[in-house]
C-alpha cells in the first residue's frame, strides 16, 4: 500500500507541477519574511529546484531539456537531419514491410481453433518431400479406422465448377471434402450447418456449402439462402450453409461438396489428408502411430516397400513453398538495415568531429561528460524516432504492396498479409534499437578526447578510436553490400537462364481460352469434340484472326498427362516408355508456331472413322526410331492395343517444354482430337487464336463464341500465350526484383558511406596534403593517395564479403536455375560493381583534395 500511495502522490505532483511550485514559492517567501535577516535565506530558485527533486521527477526534466536541446541543434542543420531521417525511414520501413510478410506468412497462427493440433498426414518413400503429400483412398480408409492418436481425420480434393443460375455462368473454385472436414478444422457455419454424416451416405450428395465471399458477391448476402439451389456443372445442389467470412481452405475454395471415399479397383486417387490430434498428443506421437500402421500394411507389389510416415503441421505444409523466399527477404532486409545504421552512425560521428571544439569548450568549462553523452543520445533518439515514425508508415503501406507483387497462387490464400499491432511494436522496437546504436557512435569520439588537445588543434580532427570505428563501418557496409549483390546477381542470372530456354514455339500475338467441360453435362468424348469443332469454326470466322487451334495440354499450362507408349517394331520398349499424349486440332502446330520437321501436319481429313494418325516429337522419334524416318510406322498409346488402337505416324515436330522451363524437353505424341475416344483427353481443352493485332482484343469474341454454343459454360481462364509463359517465370523474377532492389539501396548507402569517410579524411588531412603539395607533390599523386585509401578499404570489405556471399549463395541454392551458387561470372560482376561504386564515390573527395591550394591551407594553420 505504502509504495503505491507514494507513487500516486508523486504522479499528483507531476500532473499539477505548476500549482505545486507556486505553493513552494509562496511558502518560501513567507519563510523569508519571518527571518530577521531575509538575505540569509538562499537563492529561492535554487532552493525550489532542490526541493522539487524530492518529487522524483528530475530525470523527466532532464529528458525534456535534452530533447529540446537536441531538437534545436538538429533544426540548425536540416540537411544532416533530413538525410539521417530519410535513411533511417527507408531502413526501418523496409524491415517493417518484410516483417509484415514474415509475420503474416510464417508467424501468425492459422485462423482455426487450436491450429497447432492440425497436421497433414501422408506416407512417402524417403527422400525429398513430395510436392503434394497424400494418401491413397485405400490407405485413407484403413488409417482412419486404425489410428489411435487423431481425434478426427478428413481428406479432400480441389475442384472447379461452372456455376449457373445466378447471373452469367461463372467458374468457381471449390473442394470436395469428406464430411469430417469442418470438424477437423474446427470451423462452424455462419448460417445453416456444415456437413454431417447424413450428407455422406445418403446417396446423391447434392448438397453444398458456400463461402462468405461468393454468397455476398453472387447471392446478395441473401439471409434466407439455406435450402435454396445452386447449379454446379449443370447439377442442382441444395445449400445447407454459409461459412464465416475469411474461411477458404483449401486454397481459394468458394464452395464445398461432400466427398465419399470408396474403393474403386480401377481408379485410385491420392489425396491430401488432414487430421486433428487428440488433446495432449504431439506430432511425433502421431507420426510414430502412423509409422506403426505403415509397417503393418500387407505387402503390395504396387507399393514401394520403404514407405515412411510423414506428419507435417498444417501451417508448415501450407507455407512450405514460400518459406525460403520469405526468409531470404528477411535476411536481406536485415543486412540493409545494418548498412542504414552504419551510415547514420557515420553521419553522427562526422558531426561529432565537426563539433569537437564546441564539446571541448563545454568540458573545459566544467560541463559534465554525462550531459554531453546524453545529448548525443537524445539526438540519435530524435532521429530514430522520426525515422521510425515515417518508417512505420512505409511498413504499413509497403507490406500489403509487397504482397500484391507476389505472383498469385503462391501464398495460401487464407493467410492475409496485413500490418497489425505486432508490426507496429516491431518497428517501434527497431527504432529504439537504432536510436541506441546510432546515438552511441559519437561517444566513441568524445571519450578519449582531451579538451586540451581539441582546443589547441585548429582543425577538426578525429580521435584514433573514431577513425577505427569509421573504417570498420565502411568495411562492413561494403562486405554486406557484396553479399546482397551476389545474391541478387545469382537470382537475376537464374531468370535470364529461364528466359533463354528455347520454348519451341512463338508466344507472341496468341490469345488462349481454356475450358473444362464437366462430365455431368458432357459424359461422352464425341459430345465434347462436337463443341470444340463448333467453337473452332466460329472463332475462325471472327475478324482479325489469322488462325485458330485447340490443344488439351497447353505447353507450360497447368495440366499434363503421361502414359505408356509403344511402337509396333520396338516390342523391347513396351511398358518401359512414357510420353505425354496431346490431342490437337489440325492447325495447332501452325498456330502456336511449333516447327514441323518431317512428314505432314494433321488435316481436316483426319476424321473419326478415317485411319488413326499420330505426329511424334523429335525426342520420341529419336528414342523409338533412331536414325530412321518414323513416317508410316505404327504405335499405340494404350497398354494392350486392339487392332483399331494402332496409330500411323505421319510427321515429326520440334520438341516443346510441356511442363515448364525447369523440365527437360517433353517426349510427346500428338493425335487429332477428333480421333480421341477417351473422354478424359478431350474434356479439358485450350483454344488458341493467332491475331493480326493485340491478342487481348479477341478475348470478348472468344467468350461470346463459347456462350453462343453453350450459355451454361464459362471459360476456366482467358490469357495471352505470353502471359502463360511469363507466369512460369513470375516467381523467380519476383525474388530477383526484390533482392535487386535491396542490393541497389545497399550499394547507394555504401557509396555514400565511402564518400563520407573520404570527404572527412580529406578535410582532416588538409594540412598534410598542403605540405606535400608545397614540397612538390603533384595533383596526380594526391588523387592516387586518396584512391589507394579507397581501394584498401574496399579490398578488405570485398574479402570479408566474399566469405559471406559464399554462405548466402549456398542458402539460396534451391531458388537458382541454370547457375551454380559459386558462379564465377556473378561473383566477378558483383565485385566489379562494388569496386566501381567505391571509385565513383571517391572521385569527388579526391578531386577536392587535388584542388587544394597549399598556400591557403598552410596559412590557415
Amino acid at each position, binding site marked *: 500500500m505504502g509504495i503505491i*500511495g*507514494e507513487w500516486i502522490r508523486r504522479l499528483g505532483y507531476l500532473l499539477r507541477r505548476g500549482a505545486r511550485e507556486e505553493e513552494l514559492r509562496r511558502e518560501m517567501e*513567507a519563510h523569508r519574511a519571518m527571518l530577521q535577516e531575509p538575505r540569509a*535565506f538562499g537563492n529561492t530558485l535554487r*532552493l525550489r529546484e*532542490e*526541493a522539487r527533486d524530492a*518529487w522524483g521527477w528530475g530525470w523527466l526534466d532532464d529528458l525534456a531539456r535534452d530533447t529540446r536541446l537536441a531538437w534545436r541543434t538538429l533544426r540548425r542543420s536540416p540537411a544532416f537531419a533530413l538525410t539521417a531521417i530519410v535513411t533511417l525511414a527507408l531502413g526501418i520501413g523496409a524491415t517493417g514491410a518484410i516483417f509484415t510478410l514474415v509475420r503474416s506468412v510464417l508467424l501468425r497462427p492459422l485462423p482455426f481453433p487450436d491450429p497447432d493440433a492440425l497436421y497433414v498426414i501422408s506416407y512417402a518413400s524417403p527422400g525429398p518431400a513430395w510436392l503434394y503429400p497424400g494418401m491413397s483412398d485405400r490407405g485413407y480408409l484403413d488409417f482412419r479406422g486404425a489410428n489411435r492418436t487423431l481425434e478426427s481425420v478428413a481428406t479432400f480434393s480441389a475442384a472447379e465448377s461452372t456455376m449457373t443460375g445466378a447471373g452469367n455462368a461463372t467458374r468457381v473454385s471449390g473442394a470436395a471434402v469428406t464430411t469430417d472436414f469442418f470438424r477437423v478444422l474446427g470451423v462452424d457455419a455462419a448460417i445453416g450447418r456444415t456437413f454431417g454424416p447424413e450428407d455422406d451416405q445418403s446417396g446423391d450428395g447434392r448438397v453444398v456449402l458456400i463461402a462468405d465471399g461468393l454468397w455476398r458477391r453472387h447471392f446478395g448476402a441473401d439471409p434466407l439462402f439455406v435450402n435454396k439451389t445452386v447449379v454446379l456443372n449443370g447439377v442442382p445442389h441444395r445449400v445447407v450453409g454459409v461459412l464465416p467470412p475469411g474461411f477458404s481452405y483449401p486454397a481459394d475454395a468458394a464452395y464445398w461438396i461432400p466427398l465419399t471415399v470408396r474403393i474403386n479397383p480401377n481408379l485410385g486417387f491420392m489425396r491430401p489428408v488432414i487430421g486433428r490430434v487428440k488433446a495432449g498428443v504431439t506430432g511425433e506421437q502421431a507420426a510414430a502411430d502412423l509409422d506403426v500402421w505403415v509397417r503393418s500394411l500387407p505387402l503390395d507389389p504396387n507399393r514401394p516397400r520403404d514407405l515412411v510416415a510423414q506428419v507435417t503441421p498444417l501451417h508448415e505444409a501450407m507455407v512450405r513453398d514460400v518459406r525460403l523466399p520469405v526468409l531470404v527477404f528477411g535476411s536481406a532486409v536485415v543486412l540493409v538495415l545494418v548498412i542504414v545504421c552504419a551510415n547514420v552512425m557515420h553521419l553522427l560521428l562526422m558531426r561529432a568531429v565537426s563539433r569537437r571544439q564546441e564539446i571541448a569548450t563545454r568540458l573545459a568549462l566544467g560541463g559534465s561528460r554525462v550531459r554531453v553523452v546524453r545529448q548525443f543520445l537524445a539526438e540519435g533518439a530524435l532521429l530514430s524516432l522520426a525515422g521510425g515514425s515515417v518508417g512505420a508508415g512505409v511498413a504499413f503501406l509497403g507490406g500489403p504492396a509487397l504482397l500484391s507483387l507476389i505472383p498469385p497462387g503462391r501464398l495460401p490464400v487464407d493467410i492475409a498479409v496485413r500490418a497489425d499491432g505486432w508490426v507496429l511494436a516491431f518497428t517501434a522496437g527497431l527504432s529504439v534499437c537504432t536510436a541506441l546504436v546510432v546515438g552511441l557512435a559519437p561517444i566513441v569520439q568524445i571519450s578519449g578526447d582531451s579538451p586540451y588537445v581539441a582546443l589547441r588543434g585548429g582543425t577538426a580532427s578525429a580521435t584514433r578510436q573514431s577513425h577505427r570505428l569509421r573504417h570498420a563501418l565502411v568495411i562492413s557496409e561494403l562486405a554486406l553490400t557484396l553479399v546482397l549483390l551476389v545474391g541478387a546477381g545469382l537470382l537475376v542470372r537464374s531468370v535470364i537462364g529461364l528466359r533463354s530456354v528455347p520454348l519451341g514455339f512463338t508466344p507472341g500475338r496468341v490469345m488462349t481460352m481454356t475450358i473444362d467441360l464437366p462430365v455431368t453435362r458432357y459424359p461422352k468424348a464425341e459430345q465434347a469434340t462436337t463443341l470444340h469443332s463448333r467453337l473452332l469454326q466460329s472463332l475462325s470466322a471472327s475478324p482479325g484472326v489469322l488462325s485458330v487451334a485447340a490443344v488439351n495440354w497447353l505447353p507450360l499450362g497447368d495440366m499434363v498427362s503421361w502414359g505408356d507408349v509403344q511402337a509396333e517394331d520396338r516390342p523391347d520398349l513396351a511398358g518401359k516408355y512414357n510420353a505425354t499424349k496431346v490431342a490437337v486440332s489440325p492447325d495447332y502446330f501452325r498456330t502456336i508456331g511449333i516447327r514441323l520437321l518431317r512428314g505432314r501436319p494433321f488435316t481436316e481429313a483426319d476424321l473419326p472413322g478415317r485411319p488413326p494418325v499420330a505426329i511424334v516429337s523429335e525426342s520420341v522419334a529419336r528414342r523409338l526410331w533412331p536414325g530412321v524416318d518414323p513416317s508410316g510406322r505404327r504405335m499405340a498409346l494404350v497398354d494392350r492395343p486392339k487392332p483399331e488402337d494402332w496409330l500411323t505416324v505421319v510427321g515429326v515436330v520440334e520438341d516443346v517444354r510441356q511442363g515448364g522451363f525447369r523440365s527437360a524437353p517433353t517426349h510427346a505424341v500428338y493425335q487429332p482430337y477428333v480421333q480421341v475416344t477417351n473422354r478424359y483427353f478431350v474434356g479439358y481443352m485450350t483454344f488458341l487464336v493467332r491475331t493480326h493485332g493485340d491478342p487481348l482484343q479477341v478475348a470478348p469474341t472468344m467468350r461470346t463464341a463459347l456462350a453462343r454454343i453453350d450459355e451454361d459454360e464459362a471459360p476456366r481462364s482467358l490469357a495471352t500465350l505470353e502471359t502463360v509463359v511469363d507466369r512460369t517465370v513470375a516467381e523467380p523474377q519476383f525474388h530477383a526484383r526484390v533482392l535487386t532492389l535491396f542490393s541497389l539501396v545497399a550499394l547507394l548507402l555504401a557509396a555514400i558511406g565511402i564518400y563520407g569517410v573520404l570527404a572527412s579524411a580529406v578535410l582532416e588531412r588538409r594540412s598534410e596534403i598542403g605540405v606535400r603539395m608545397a614540397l612538390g607533390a603533384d595533383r596526380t599523386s594526391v588523387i592516387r593517395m586518396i584512391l589507394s585509401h579507397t581501394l584498401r578499404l574496399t579490398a578488405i570489405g570485398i574479402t570479408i564479403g566474399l566469405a559471406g556471399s559464399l554462405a548466402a549463395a549456398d542458402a539460396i541454392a534451391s531458388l537458382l536455375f541454370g547457375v551454380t551458387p559459386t558462379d564465377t561470372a556473378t561473383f566477378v560482376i558483383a565485385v566489379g560493381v562494388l569496386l566501381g561504386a567505391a571509385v565513383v564515390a571517391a572521385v569527388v573527395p579526391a578531386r577536392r583534395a587535388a584542388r587544394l591550394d597549399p598556400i591557403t591551407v598552410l596559412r590557415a594553420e
Partner: protein
Amino acid sequence: MPRDAGLPPGTLMMLVLRVLTTQPLHGYAIAQRLHQLSREELSVEEGSLYPALQKLLVKGWVRAAWRESESGRQVREYRITASGRRQLDAEMAEYRRTASAIGWLLDEA
C-alpha cells in the same frame, strides 16, 4: 552560531517528524524548534529543510495545509500523519539501538 551541522538526510526527516509530534508547525517554526530543542547546537538550512519536507509529503508521513498565523500571515503548516508516527517510532527504535551499540563500542573498545 554554527550553521547546518551536516545531518544525514534521513536523520533530518526523523527530527522534523519528532518536532511535529507535539503540534503542527510551518517551515520557519520547524527550523526554530529544531534549533531550540537541540539547545542551539543544530541549525537547519532552508536548502536542506525544504527538500526534506517535500520528501515527507511524498512519503505521506506529513500533511500540509495553509493557515493564517497569529501575525496575520499565510503560512503552510505541516501535521504528522498516522503513518508518519509509525515511521518515527520505527526510526527512533532503530536509532536508539544503533546509538547505544556505537556507545558501547566506543566505551568498551
